């Protein structure tokens, strides 16, 4: 990581996270994100990394279940928490717009 995060880099990271940040917040994020990225960058100094090693978070004593159908949630109940819904469907705004800025 470079010493200082550029404005574009901050906006890129915010976009990856799907979080809007205002023009006025960029400078604050430049400092804060840079601090954290400098922290995690120290991992590069740790030796002994075997790239070929198979990694699963936990493999000991885990369980499996039978592949069978069970009870499902009641759609009416599920929809109670949805901000916008109609009938048995959750509503979403336009996904692909017609040439307009998305």
């Amino acid at each position, binding site marked *: 990581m470079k010493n200082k995060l550029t404005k574009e880099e901050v906006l890129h*990271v*915010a976009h*990856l*996270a*799907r*979080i*809007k*940040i205002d023009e006025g917040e960029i400078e604050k*994020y430049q400092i*804060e*994100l840079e*601090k*954290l*990225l400098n*922290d*995690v960058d*120290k*991992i*590069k100094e*740790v030796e*002994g*990394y*075997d*790239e070929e*090693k198979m*990694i699963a*978070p*936990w493999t*000991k*004593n*885990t*369980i*499996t*279940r039978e592949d069978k159908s069970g009870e499902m*949630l*009641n759609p009416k*109940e*599920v929809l*109670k*928490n*949805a*901000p*916008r819904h109609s009938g048995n469907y*959750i509503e*979403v*705004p*336009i*996904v692909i*717009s017609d040439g*307009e800025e*998305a």
Partner: protein
Amino acid sequence: MLDKSIQEIHEALKNKMIKPIDLVEEAFDRIEKNKELNAYITLNKEEAIKRAKELENKEVGNNLLFGLPIAVKDNIITKNLKTTCASHILENFIPIYNATVIEKINDNDMIIIGKTNMDEFAMGSSSRTSYFGAPKNPWNKEKISGGSSGGSATTIAAKDVLFALGTDTGGSIRQPASYTGIVGMKPTYGRVSRYGLVAFASSLDQIGPMTRNVYENALLLNIITGADEKDLTSADKESEDFTRLIGKDIKGMKIALPNYFMSDIVTKEIRTEVEKAKKILEENGATVDYIDMKYLDKVVILYQIISMGEASSNLARFDGIRYGYSIENPKNIEDLYLETRKNGFGKEVKRRIMVGSYLLSGENAKIYYNKALSIRDDIKKEFDKVFKNYDLIIGPTTTTTAYDLTDSMDDPSKSFMDDVLVIPVNMAGLPGLSLPIGFGKNHMPIGLHIIGNSFDESTIYQLASFLEKQVNLDLDPRKDDKNV
């Protein structure tokens, strides 16, 4: 009544001297009196009273937990009871099913009294990232209760209730337990089902009991463990009685104390208390050896990478579409995501999601996340080596006692560094408990961290209960009239 021993309460219920409703009312009275501590986000008053009355028609039997009120951290979902994760984005979220641990609590006739305050999505170490304001430490209301399970720690320390559930991703049960002078256990990863726990870092998160003493801690662990087909990372282990070694003497026990845990990152007063505990153990026939362990100074980096990476992925589900807060009149779907997440999440959470997204993007996943997992595996092996020769590992739980609520939150690394002594346990998936062993300056509690081998919670309880009896602390903040 709630100050009596669990056996006395149980006998009183059994002999019909009291009813569950008496305990519930007493708990709500105390919570009301301690309102200023801000331990709760939501109280479950109506439902708790209803449930207490229902229990009047049921046999008490031999269940020591029958009719007892319990507080639940607000990232564990409860059917028909608001679950916010202390976030604006879930401020009005009402779950439609119960977490597995909640089903188990209900099956064992305990009564949920409310949902406790915490850091937003459990991200923090002082509970100050809560959308609802931070809880206060019952020992000194100007101090933090720690975090992220700060509300659960507060309500136990203040003696509102005997039992609470917390969650621990990088110390979030043990660190607040230490700051507030209570007992907090993070069980082995997989011991307790995570079904219905709102995920922060899935490979680290674990639910565990927070209580006023060791015995009651083990009792609560007894009922929440077990394999669950709704959580395939839950462990296929027979249930056991975690109280079974409590009261046994510790002669011949071999204990390790890593040098790093006693280095100058820890304040002198805390090291002194740990030395005192060490001496008690040695006087009673245990051996305590200073040892060297690799990687302990690297755990915070690994924790940052793994937890922020996993968080960025887990919190992608908060999109303003299916549940939770959503902006009005979004222009299109991208606008809906960006604005909802901007307004819905707090500062700390946004920062962690952003860094996490970066760490997992493209080639970075290999450079950071995969490497962190690989070194985590090496840490696990390092612990395995120690447990070949030792029964338990001890050390301080925290580097300082609880600090001021007004201390700066500007340094984004600080909340990670607070947990440097407790994170190794999450990295290795091991069980760990914090036990109050003394007080520091201004009478703030100090905790001893006891680490066990995988699935060996019982030996931790054995040592903890032995020490608890030996140090015999007065852990009631109400006795000092400056406090509660």
